[in-house]
């Protein structure tokens, strides 16, 4: 059973774990991707905007889940991705796998995230705070009444 989701609402790790509940699942591996404050080209990243081609993205999620189920002995899968504007620290993606044992749970989760990044039509663009302040003199007009 695979849960696929593409949503502009926040993703929850607790919900993802619940979606992976399966009798016999002795090992569950969950990978969570979060927005990092890496220096972007335009300064420090304060947010990322994720866009997706929704229909093809969901179709690819489902195909990827079927592929994972063929390759690994899985009992449950999660492929969730968020879209829209995300602030630093927010969760962009959760993938997870429930298996009887830990080795395939790790292998499946890794497979899902590696494949997702290169085959699912989702893109991110940075929204950065400028690295330096603008050099232009500020308007210091005197006598301006504040407020």
């Amino acid at each position: 059973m695979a849960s696929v989701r593409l949503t502009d609402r926040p993703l929850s790790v607790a919900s993802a774990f619940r979606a992976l509940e399966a009798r016999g699942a002795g090992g569950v591996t969950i990978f969570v991707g979060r927005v990092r404050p890496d220096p972007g080209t335009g300064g420090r990243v304060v947010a990322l905007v994720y866009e997706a081609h929704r229909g093809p993205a969901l179709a690819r999620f489902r195909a990827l889940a079927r592929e994972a189920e063929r390759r690994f002995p899985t009992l449950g899968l999660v492929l969730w991705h968020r879209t829209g504007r995300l602030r630093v620290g927010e969760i962009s993606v959760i993938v997870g796998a429930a298996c009887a044992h830990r080795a395939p749970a790790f292998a499946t989760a890794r497979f899902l995230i590696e494949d997702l990044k290169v085959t699912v039509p989702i893109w991110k663009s940075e929204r950065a705070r400028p690295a330096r302040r603008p050099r232009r003199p500020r308007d210091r007009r005197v006598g301006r009444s504040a407020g």
Partner: protein
Amino acid sequence: MARPVTVLLFAGARVAVGRAELRWSVPAGGLAAGELARQIAAEYPRLAPILRSSRLVHNGEYVRGPSETVRPGDEFAIHPPYGGG
């Protein structure tokens, strides 16, 4: 008059065109996907270098070849390299 093709632009393609979506008129009998992409790049020259590394998507499926026919009312999308996660 024939309905236009809806052209969806993502990421760098969206930035190059300045819009996320275009309506593109095609002949009633359709137009080859490669020719459609060429026409759009001719109108938006900044799109040309992005097209070279992009995949073309027709009604939600990857275009199988440049001669595939895109018909009025179809959806056509330009997918630069993916970057989710």
